[in-house]
């Protein structure tokens, strides 16, 4: 009798507890060792780019929050920035401060959710609830401000929808968060099982990361000094701390996000201090009715929680953009899985894929 060994094809997803949405990974396995990984996306495609070509800018604005439901502010900021750039409108200082504060709060909430999801992937259930508890405070605040918990539609062309309020809530968030982060440190980071699951796992060299167009926290935790916030005119005048880690592994990606939350809190504090003293909002909004962008190509990019997000618009002076393209960070992270998961074992692979912070609506657009 002869025996033949064959590899096993495993469909991880599209409906699977740890793919954070509807990602399908076609894995080829030898035992539990992964020989190849082929991501298959598109289960959540909503045609955001095609849609833009049929809509005026103001019609399109409420939909862009849906590109990344965890960090909606970043995408509406991008579209607003494109329009403001094209029409050469300068936004007032107070609007800038409001936007920075909300963006950074949004980044904190997004990272908090990631921490919970990552630990969930590793099999620890409690941190998920703890980080959701803290995220809830931020979402409540967003709800008070914009009337929505996730799809805000608060930034409008040339400013914000209404003046900022409930600043004492932000004060409370900033006072509570540090002690909670300390709790996470005690619960998670000192746990020997957690350390064994993340240290030396999912090593991502800086060169590989750049070659795969990985940006944001994932790149910075591989030792690269690259943060577009430093060149961003929106952030000018704010003191931003650098978070660069050299370890390149899942642990570094975890640590970097915790540190980034701390840095974001400092930025929020600066914006908050300014806003508390600032006079009532005076802004000149762009009239969006029949608004036409002058002919040309427009670029805008921003440091979103999952890497650089950017928007490109080509306009021919019409009400609708001729072509609108989004660049999202997660899209490239999914592509990286092809390389990063090969040679890993199934349960490490889940942890590594989780550490990259992939959000599927962002991938599928």
């Amino acid at each position, binding site marked *: 009798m002869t025996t033949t060994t064959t590899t096993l094809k495993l469909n991880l997803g599209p409906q699977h*507890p740890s793919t954070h949405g509807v990602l399908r990974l076609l894995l080829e396995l030898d035992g539990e060792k992964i020989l190849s990984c082929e991501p298959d996306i598109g289960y959540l495609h909503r045609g955001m780019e095609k849609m833009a070509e049929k809509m005026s800018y103001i019609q399109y604005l409420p939909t862009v929050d849906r590109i990344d439901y965890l960090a909606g502010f970043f995408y509406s900021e991008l579209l607003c920035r494109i329009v403001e750039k094209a029409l050469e409108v300068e936004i007032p200082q107070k609007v800038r401060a409001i936007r920075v504060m909300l963006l950074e709060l949004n980044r904190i909430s997004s990272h908090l959710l990631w921490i919970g999801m990552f630990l969930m992937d590793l099999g620890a259930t409690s941190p998920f609830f703890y980080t959701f508890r803290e995220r809830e405070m931020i979402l409540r605040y967003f709800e008070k401000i914009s009337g929505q918990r996730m799809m805000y539609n608060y930034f409008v062309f040339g400013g914000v929808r209404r003046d900022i309020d409930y600043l004492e809530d932000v004060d409370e968030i900033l006072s509570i968060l540090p002690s909670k982060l300390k709790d996470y440190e005690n619960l998670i980071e000192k746990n020997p*099982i957690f350390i064994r699951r993340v240290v030396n796992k999912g090593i991502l060299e800086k060169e590989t990361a750049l070659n795969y167009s990985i940006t944001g926290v994932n790149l910075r935790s591989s030792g690269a000094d690259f943060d577009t916030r430093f060149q961003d005119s929106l952030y000018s005048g704010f003191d931003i701390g650098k978070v660069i880690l050299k370890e390149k592994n899942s642990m570094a990606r975890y640590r970097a996000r915790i540190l980034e939350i701390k840095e974001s809190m400092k930025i929020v504090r600066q914006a908050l201090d300014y806003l508390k003293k600032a006079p009532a909002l005076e802004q000149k909004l762009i009239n969006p009715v029949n608004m036409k962008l002058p002919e040309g190509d427009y670029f805008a990019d921003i440091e979103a929680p999952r890497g650089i997000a950017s928007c490109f618009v080509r306009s021919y002076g019409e009400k609708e953009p001729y072509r609108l393209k989004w660049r999202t960070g997660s899209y490239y992270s999914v592509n990286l899985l092809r390389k990063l998961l090969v040679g890993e*074992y199934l349960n490490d692979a889940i942890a590594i894929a989780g550490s990259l912070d992939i959000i599927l609506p962002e991938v599928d657009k």
Partner: protein
Amino acid sequence: MNYLYFLYIEFLQRHNIPKLFGDITYYFIPFCIIAIALLVVVLGLVLAERKLLGFFTQRKGPNRVGWWGLLQTLADAFKLLCKENITPDKADRFLFNLAPVLVFVPIIAALGIIPYSAEFTFVNTSTNVILYLILAAFPVLSVFLAGWASNNKYSLFGAARSIAQVLSYELPITFVILSVVVLASSMNLTGITLAQTSKWWFSGWFIFPGILGFIILFICILAELNRCPFDLPEAESELVCGYNTEYSGMRFAIFYLSEYAMLFANAMFISILFLGGYLSPFGKYLFGSSFLIYFEQAFWLLLKASVIVFIIIWIRATLPRLASFDLIKFSWVYLLPLSILNLFVAVIIKFAGAGG
């Protein structure tokens, strides 16, 4: 033959039923009683776990069905009972249906040999520690059957992991139990319990000479039960649901409930080996020599088991899952040598004690 048996025969004879009938039926009755008691305990246990996890993660837990959510598990079980039993097309129908049946048998048998109090042991053999050991390892067979027969890759992975896990952790368990047997000079669970009696409160419990063994056994039991942090066979984030992915309706409920039944059985087993079983921690019983003493003894056993269960649930709320290779390595590299060392320590304590 014990007290219960005579009680039963006496009851039958009072109603003019022949002794032969009693001899035959006696062995079925305990299993019926256990099955019913088990269901109640397990339903309570599932609720307790959900409540405790809710407490640990700052949620409320089930609180809608019945007062304090007490009927929640009953409602869930009823819901599962009403659901359709789906057998996948390409599954091995016979084995697929056999697995959930098989999983309950060893658990009920295992509960039958546990001494709940001085006289309440349904089946009392002289070497029932060994019997328990075999019965406790038995459910993995049905786990394997379920995983294999489902014709699902996730189930297969779950079953394979489960087998690897039980194979690695069975050996340290055996060595730890052996050390207890040496300390107690008995292979009978009642004998082991009685060997832990002492004059001063709980000083006679084997946890004091055998703290190392207790810890090893506790870890191994976690692994055998597929509980966190050793829940790889049913790792939700990796294998969807592990070996019972394809099961639905009542079959799934049986797997689910049997897990909890096994959890409680093993918790009682640890309590008997190391925490003095049904012995009172105060050295003397509150109900002196009345008939209630049997209930008090059962109460102490259940209380000790509940504490163990609480710790297991607590661990689940705290720890992430081990990596698959660490799991195997942990057993062979750390637990096995330590359990052998523990056996030596037990032997030395025993002989030093006997000499002195």
